[in-house]
């Protein structure tokens, strides 16, 4: 159960056995309508109302559910797009190298605040381009280690935002996969070498592997046309499973990954719930709906005049575990009770 404070604060999920009837009252935002609004170019802006520069690493379609969550958070602080705030968006369509140029474009458009959701790449691109502009980021990983903020409680500079535990819990994905195939000793790791957090994730995975007595084989993919190769390699080496590191590039392409995993018969686990929902086997990672809603709230608070330096970085502590039993069945796997009892959602 979560609770909304009067001035529109964000929500925290507590024990799930409590009623979550309150969730229904958030349905007032028709998700598709909002997504459509976001997809449209933010053209005619009025100078009288503040402008949010939204730096999207992907496309509005891929980000639809995240945009809904962001709009919800914004609404909690009293801002509604088109009424008292306008949003100027730039979309990289997966080409992360273009992010700094898009960020510079937004910064030149004299936006009030820049929102850089969807990972460390976006946050770093925004940081290089923004100058003194306030930035709200949304990423998995440690923003202090990434050099974005001085500390979580006192960001200090012009940036603040939300972090999820997705990056920290990469090792848990390996653990779950090992639990599913206890006999297997070799596991394939899918990594995006261009990701700023890839180094720390691989180090953490190596440590976990040695603790669990496993061997790892790292497969790199930084473009969607390299995905197929990962699955064929994983299958060819006879790995017990394929563990995806936390990376937004992977997360946004969950449907594609699920399709490849099914086609190649590879048990895989990613960070995003979209993966098991699209037919993939498992996911373990932070709740992006929460992190994007918090991003919206922080953007709203900065529009109201608060300084990013005074807004502590919020950590979305909720981590969710999804299992798709149909996928497990298709792969000929039996999900042990330890995993079933840990799962937040079991798709049957």
């Amino acid at each position, binding site marked *: 159960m979560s*609770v909304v404070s009067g001035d529109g*604060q964000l929500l*925290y999920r507590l024990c799930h056995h409590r009623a979550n009837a309150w969730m229904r009252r958030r349905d007032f935002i028709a998700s598709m309508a909002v997504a459509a609004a976001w997809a449209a170019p933010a053209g005619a802006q009025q100078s009288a109302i503040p402008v949010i520069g939204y730096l999207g690493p992907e496309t509005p379609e891929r980000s639809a559910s995240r945009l809904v969550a962001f709009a919800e958070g914004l609404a909690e602080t009293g801002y509604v797009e088109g009424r008292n705030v306008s949003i100027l968006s730039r979309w990289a369509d997966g080409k992360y190298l273009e992010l700094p140029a898009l960020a510079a474009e937004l910064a030149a458009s004299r936006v009030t605040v820049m929102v850089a959701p969807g990972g460390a790449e976006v946050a770093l691109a925004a940081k290089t381009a923004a100058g003194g502009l306030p930035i709200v980021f949304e990423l998995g990983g440690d923003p202090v280690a990434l050099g974005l903020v001085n500390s*979580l409680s006192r960001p200090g500079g012009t940036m603040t935002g939300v972090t999820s535990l997705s990056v920290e819990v990469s090792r848990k994905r390996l653990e779950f996969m090992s639990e599913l195939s206890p006999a297997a000793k070799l596991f394939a790791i899918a990594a995006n070498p261009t990701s700023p957090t890839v180094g720390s994730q691989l180090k953490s995975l190596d440590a976990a592997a040695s603790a669990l007595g496993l061997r790892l084989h790292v497969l790199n993919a930084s473009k969607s046309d390299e995905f197929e190769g990962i699955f064929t390699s994983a299958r060819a080496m006879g790995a017990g499973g394929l563990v995806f590191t936390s990376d937004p590039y992977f997360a946004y392409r969950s449907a594609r990954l699920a399709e490849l995993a099914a086609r190649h018969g590879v048990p895989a686990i990613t960070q995003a719930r979209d993966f098991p929902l699209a037919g993939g086997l498992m996911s373990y990672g932070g709740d992006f709906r929460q992190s994007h809603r918090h991003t919206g709230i922080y953007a709203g608070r900065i529009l109201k005049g608060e300084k990013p330096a005074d807004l502590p970085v919020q950590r979305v502590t909720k*981590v969710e575990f999804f299992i798709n039993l149909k996928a497990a069945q298709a792969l000929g796997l039996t999900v042990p009770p330890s995993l079933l009892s*840990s799962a937040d959602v079991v798709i049957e």
Partner: protein
Amino acid sequence: MVSNAPTPPRKSLFTKYFVALFAAVVVPLLVAGASEAWFGYRDQRARLSDLLDSEARLAAVKIEYFLEGISDHLSWMVQLPWSAGADERRRLDALRLLRQAQPIMSLRLIDAAGRERLFVSRIGLNRVESGDDYSGDPAVIGAIAQRTWLGPVVFQGGSEPFMTIAVAGTRAAAGVAIAEVNLKFIWEVISAIRVGQTGAAFVLDQPGRLVAHPDISLVLRADETSALPLQLLRAAIVAEPGEAVAGSDTEGNMVMATMASIPMVEWSVIVKQPVAEAFGPIYAALWRTGILLIAGAILAALLAYWLTQRVVGHIRLLEDGVARIGSGQFDHRIQLSTGDELEQLAERLNEMAGELAVSNERSERISRLKRFLAPQVAELVDRSGDDRVLDGRRVEVVVVFCDLRGFTAFSARSEPETIIRALSVYYDALDRVITAHGATLVSFLGDGVMVLVNAPVACPDPALRAVAMARDMQAGVQELLAEWRAAGHDLGFGVGLAMGPATVGRIGSEGRLDYTAIGNVVNLASRLCASAKDGQILVDRMAAQAVGRAVDLVELEARVLKGFDQRVPIFVVGTPPPTTM
């Protein structure tokens, strides 16, 4: 209005009555308003204390329930003693617990020997049978000593509030369960508290750090200095238990606050509401009272003005009426129909005016009498207040006629001013004599005068008195005649008097009343006068007999007089002895 208007009063009745009436309405209103405000304030303060207090208690109970719930979950994990090998069922229980209790970030199970047997975490890797020694861990020691141990609040990474809760089994063999709990979940309880529109709650731990606040970023900031005002607020509440206390919050707003403590962790739940909002109803009531007061005052002023104006208006009407009556308008009537004492007063004044009119009429009548009565006679009538003496009756009177000889010729020759002046002097001389003898001047007719003696007021020896008067008349007028003859006017003066019964009384219309005598004696006296020569006084026989020898009378030859069949005996008053006149 009257000419002699009195000086205006030193203090106007209008002001006095206006002030009194106004005060009579406004003072009770003020007293009522002030007392309502004061009691309303006290009631509101008491109500606020109760409301905030109950909210704080409720939040404290909920937080306690949250912590106890986690302790209960943990106690499930330490019911059975540990066996030698890995315990798969216990691992499953631990995983289910983690799924069930979202705030628990990790769970560590320690056996009786203080060794870690199981560790499950949402972030880190799970561990089974690691055997690490935890016997010296304060959580283990605390749990073994108190069964349930609640650790201090720790801010992970300098921001996220966490606390450790450890629960020991009922038997030492069951070991200890240690959970790391994310306190951000308490935020749910705290942010659910709304007092009015903007009232809220927050939680401080024993050293005074923010554990929960509706603005979660204040908690995440883990800032000691920004929590300082809240610590001061708590100190103020502790100093005055059981009552809502005024203080300022982190934003510097004045708030009313109460506190409830959570004894198991020594935390304080403080519920606050901005003063402006808490006393909003009172301010609203004060406004209402103020507006009512002003409206009441205006109404009172209007009412007082109207009433006072009415009363003063009536009094002015009375004053004006009295002034008119005083100035002689006795027919003036004061028109007042107020139905109260003023109307009574007006009626009294009207009655008074009526009586004055009657009395005035009488005095006017008397003054009219004075025209033909001698002043002393008029006085007599006046004193008696009764003019019935003037009513018609038949009495013995002496009628005296006198007139000037040659006056017609004189008046034809002379200027009107000369004639009038001469007549004026002539009448003055006669009037003096008539008055001196108490006779009644009945009428003037040109140069002739008719005088009555013994009517309307009787007198002794009327004939003698009449003769004496006639002699005085002759004496007085002859003096004038001497002057006039010197001026070349050949005038004479003759007197005739007769005595006998006559009808006397007032005759004439209402507007022009005269007192006169009717009878043969009047004719006779008139004829005698006409018959008299200058300087002569002719007397009839009746008067002569009445005078007797008191006066030297000489009987003349009886004469034929007009209107008398027989010759009338006539007496002439002899040359009087030299008089002092």
